[in-house]
């Protein structure tokens, strides 16, 4: 083991900031992080052991106990569920003789659920040793099970199994064509920093990651920062359930992205950029690394871009399964080799980001748009979209429709238009912007995709009338509790309380005060949480409670009397103490008929 660790440390130049990459390699080699490895890392990287332990426990894809040699994660997004993921999971577990959440006795297989893997339009999806497989069917499971039993390495599985499709249905400004490599760079170097920044500002471009901050202003603030060592970071964490448009950009528009990052580097005076790629997109890692190498060779990156004294390099770093790392300051912590805990702000990353140096963090799509603006000008961009929301938005459409996939629309497009294009019928409601966004009902189809109306990072999940809203809200509410980083009280404790309170109502154990109580917890979490995760974690409950109060109350009315106490709930302590959770350890509130 010592030689493997030594070799890994050399590969990452003994940098503590590379801790996640180092641990990823160790996990892949030993299927867990052995204690001995931790001690070696403490000695070699000169960091406290608690930092390493913290990282191992924080990230879902690291483990201190051995996982299977084939480590399978089933995507537990609502979209996967709608495509039958639970039945699929049962079959997979049965076929591989491995109960969910366990490691098989021979150590060959482990199976567990994970948060949305970003294959929403081609689910149900799983990750096997980090590699995604979509469109799971019984036939596919049989095939995979056989490959695993024969112990064939995943990398040797036939390409068709590991194929991830783009599924683009509608192209506009950004998706219609590719920038000729170098074209945006030439346009940039021919102008001045100031001039290009002016164009970005003029374009009205706002961040595509969700918050919608003016990109030009962000870059200008960074230019004004005192320190001159600066960084460009591309946020490719894409963790919002139902969002997968960055996957397509990274897969098929990586040149445009890298062009945009270099333009940003030119403007803010950065020599180094990072792409923080979510661990679920492992399949995109090597292709990105190869494209970066190719662009270096072609002098579109590197020390002398286009032959000028213009230096800019890009490094790809992988995440390890933590939604919170999409939050920009948590992402920076993660890049520094730490747990993804959001920082206090101010200072903002533009003045104190990576290694406390001025840093801009932008979404993949934002950089792609910036590259087009550098080439075609701000005026060109501004002509599309609405006054407050310039340009186009790439939507990831999934759920109940005939053609789930990628659609690029000018801002201002109505929901009605989108539903018609993707072939959605008998619609109950739509989750716009993912769980942290808004659930809209079928009375709101004239609303528009725009920052001033329905803001979205790209997630657009459609539910038809056969769906149960409670199942949707429950999935999202559990998601947030699972992904809370745990730093602040309201989100760490509150999201779990909210989850339990919601489940109580869902299962018919709620009495009249319980919806009010749920609402109170939800509002408290929203008002007092430290970062965007906590501030939006109650959105699914609050937005559906606002639209369907009668449904919530109906859940309560199912009980014919108001119980003085919750019969089954009062056994919870006994269950905990005895470690039992079988059916005999539960009591029904109302006698069964």
């Amino acid at each position: 083991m010592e030689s493997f660790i030594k070799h890994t440390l050399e590969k990452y130049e003994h940098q503590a900031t590379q801790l996640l990459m180092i641990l990823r390699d160790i996990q892949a080699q030993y299927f867990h992080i052995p204690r001995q490895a931790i001690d070696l890392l403490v000695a070699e990287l000169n960091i406290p052991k608690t930092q390493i332990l913290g990282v191992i426990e924080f990230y879902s894809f690291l483990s201190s106990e051995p996982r299977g040699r084939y480590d399978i994660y089933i995507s537990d997004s609502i979209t996967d569920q709608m495509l039958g993921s639970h039945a699929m999971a049962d079959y997979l577990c049965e076929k591989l003789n491995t109960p969910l959440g366990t490691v098989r006795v021979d150590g060959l297989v482990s199976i567990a659920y994970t948060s949305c893997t970003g294959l929403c339009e081609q689910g149900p999806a799983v990750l096997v040793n980090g590699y995604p497989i979509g469109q799971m069917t019984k036939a596919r499971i049989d095939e995979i099970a056989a490959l695993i039993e024969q112990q064939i390495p995943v990398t040797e599985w036939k390409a068709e199994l590991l194929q991830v499709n783009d599924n683009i249905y509608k192209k506009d400004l950004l998706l219609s064509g590719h920038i000729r490599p170098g074209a945006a760079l030439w346009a940039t170097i021919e102008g001045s920093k100031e001039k290009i920044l002016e164009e970005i500002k003029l374009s009205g471009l706002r961040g595509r990651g969700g918050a919608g901050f003016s990109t030009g202003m962000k870059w200008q603030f960074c230019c004004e920062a005192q320190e001159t060592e600066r960084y460009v970071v591309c946020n490719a964490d894409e963790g919002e359930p139902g969002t997968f448009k960055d996957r397509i950009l990274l897969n098929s528009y990586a040149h445009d992205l890298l062009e945009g990052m270099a333009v940003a580097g030119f403007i803010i005076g950065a020599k180094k950029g990072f792409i923080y790629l979510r661990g679920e997109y492992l399949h995109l890692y090597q292709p990105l690394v190869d494209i970066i190498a190719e662009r270096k060779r072609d002098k579109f990156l590197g020390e002398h871009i286009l032959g000028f004294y213009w230096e800019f390099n890009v490094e790809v770093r992988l995440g390890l399964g933590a939604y919170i790392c999409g939050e920009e300051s948590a992402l920076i912590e993660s890049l520094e080799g730490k747990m993804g805990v959001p920082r206090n702000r101010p200072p903002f990353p533009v003045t104190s980001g990576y290694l406390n140096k001025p840093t801009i963090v932008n979404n993949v799509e934002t950089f792609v748009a910036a590259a087009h603006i550098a080439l075609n000008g701000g005026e060109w961009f501004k002509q599309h979209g609405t006054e407050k929301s310039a340009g186009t938005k790439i939507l990831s459409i999934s759920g109940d429709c005939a053609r789930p996939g990628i659609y690029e629309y000018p801002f201002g497009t109505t929901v009605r238009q989108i539903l018609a294009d993707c072939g959605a019928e008998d619609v109950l409601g739509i989750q716009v912007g993912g769980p942290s966004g808004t659930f809209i009902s079928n009375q709101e189809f004239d609303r528009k995709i725009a920052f001033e109306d329905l803001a979205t990072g790209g997630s657009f999940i459609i539910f038809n009338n056969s769906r149960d809203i409670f199942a949707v809200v429950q999935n999202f509410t559990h998601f947030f509790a699972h992904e809370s980083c745990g730093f602040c009280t309201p989100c760490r404790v509150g999201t779990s309380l909210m989850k339990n309170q919601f489940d109580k109502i869902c299962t018919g154990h709620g009495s009249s005060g319980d919806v009010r109580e749920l609402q109170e917890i939800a509002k408290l979490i929203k008002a007092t949480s430290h970062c965007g995760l906590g501030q939006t974690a109650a959105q699914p409950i609050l937005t559906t409670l606002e639209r369907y109060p009668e449904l919530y109350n109906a859940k309560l009315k199912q009980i014919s009397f108001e119980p003085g106490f919750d019969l089954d709930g009062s056994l919870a302590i006994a269950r905990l103490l005895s470690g039992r959770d079988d059916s005999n350890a539960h009591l029904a509130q109302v006698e069964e008929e």
Partner: protein
Amino acid sequence: MTHSKHITIDGQTVPFEDGQTIMDAATHAGVYIPHLCHHPDFTPHGSCKLCTVDVNGRQVSSCTFPAADGQQIGNNTDELNAERKRLTQMLFVEGNHFCPSCEKSGNCQLQAVGYHLNMLDNHYPHFFALREVDASHPDVLIDHNRCIFCALCVRASHAEDKDVFGIVGRGINKHLAINSESGKLCDSELSVDDRAAHICPTGAILVKGTAFKVPIGQRKFDHHDIDEVSLGEEHGK
């Protein structure tokens, strides 16, 4: 000293200097803002959220938020105190706090904040988390049941260049970890003279042999509200 800039807290004019947080300015002016993870000697953490105040209609953590000229701040309001009470109750149900049998009772800031906010019950269902006690160290004991993850011990030990403590893990599974090969306190560099051994606001870190030196009933918060104690300590009284 002349102050040209000021903020307004609950109608009271409070001067501040550049670089001060709202909490700093308030404390200097003798205005108490409830807090647990804050200590003036250490970098603000901003995690407990008890210090939440209303600034121009938006809720922020006063221990980390910079004071700025003209801010209209709500602090001692019914709405905020109700929220703070709920947050305190969350901390109570998350861990296992049996005040009547706790060595720290009467000297505990968590308990005292509960008194201050008129907290009469725990309100939320308990989590009954399974947590351990580490009594391995000759002089210092850790009862993880009482840890509220304020990271004061982490910060204090870091300032002492020892990094004995760290908060590890995610979400509700967060816990305090010890920086030693065995993970036990006895194998760490902690000494009873460390500031880190004395900083804990709750009864999670206790110095052995001192627990009942002062009888219950004669302790700090048995006779004084935490607002008085907190401001008094800060002003060197």
